[in-house]
């Protein structure tokens, strides 16, 4: 009962953010100029040598949150081709393995895609310090994420933010999962 109650504000937030993101997508994308972004020193004579975010990001596939760039589409569609390594001996690994998380909750199931992550990240960025590599071995919590832990280490800092509930809560609970689907807790 207590945990159902604790989930309630989050459920409301889910609703709210769906409405909010619908509103944002109507507006044109805008980026603050560096000189007015609050962290660059406008008195720096070299400031004009730096690239303005708008110049680079406006050319990439649109999103409504974070950098307002859909980074995964940018990568998979070939709009960008960031280097995978700079040291010649590095082994670059990409795996295609989905794991379904949040199997017991009230909000939609979370399909965690290894492919989307390993295109960008190395296994060691998550395993074993953030997540043990065994389906069902990790007790995850939305609150911990909101505190910048677990998925929230990246989502909320550099990868799309936690306000994008349905990007993670992406799988309806009332339909059967693919045969042989790996399930977490």
């Amino acid at each position, binding site marked *: 009962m207590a945990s159902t109650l604790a989930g309630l504000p989050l459920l409301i937030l889910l609703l709210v953010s769906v409405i909010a993101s619908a509103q944002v997508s109507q507006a044109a994308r805008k980026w603050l100029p560096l000189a007015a972004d609050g962290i660059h020193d406008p008195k720096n004579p070299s400031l004009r040598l730096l690239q303005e975010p708008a110049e680079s990001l406006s050319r990439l596939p649109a999103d409504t949150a974070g950098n307002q760039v859909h980074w995964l589409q940018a990568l998979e569609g070939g709009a*960008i081709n960031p280097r995978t390594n700079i040291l010649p001996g*590095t082994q670059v690994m990409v795996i295609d393995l989905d794991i379904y998380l949040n199997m017991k909750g009230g909000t939609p199931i979370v399909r965690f895609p290894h492919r989307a992550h390993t295109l960008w990240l190395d296994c060691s960025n998550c395993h074993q310090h953030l997540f043990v590599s065994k389906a069902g071995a990790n007790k995850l919590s939305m609150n911990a994420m909101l505190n910048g832990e677990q998925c929230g280490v990246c989502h909320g800092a550099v990868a799309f933010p936690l306000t994008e509930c349905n990007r993670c809560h992406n799988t309806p609970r009332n339909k059967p999962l693919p045969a042989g689907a790996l399930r977490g807790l």
Partner: protein
Amino acid sequence: MSNGLIKRAALLGALGLALLAAPSVAEYGDVVLNKVSEKNGVRPVVFPHWFHRVRFRCKVCHSELAFKMRAGANVVTMADITNGKFCGMCHNNQIAWGADKCDLCHSGKPGLKSGIYGGHQTSGPGRW
């Protein structure tokens, strides 16, 4: 859905916007490094994730170059950089322009604390 409910949902939506989309400062993912800079008479350093991730995947810096994924967790000095460590792995006049271009890195407003900027960031015990 009744009219009242829609109004209430819209209100909640507005509230959510105010809470979630906090006034945007900096670009999402910008990191300020100011552990030693200002103490030594130079501006804080601004590291833009958006700019670098167009060119490099996360694994280059956070696995190959072993930058810890926690703002403020890496103790970087200018000597390290000129010796080819941290930013100096690339800012060496080979992969990118060199360490002589002080103002391109030391571009932050005086007084900024080390940390991640750009809104949306979560806060709490995990951060400290």
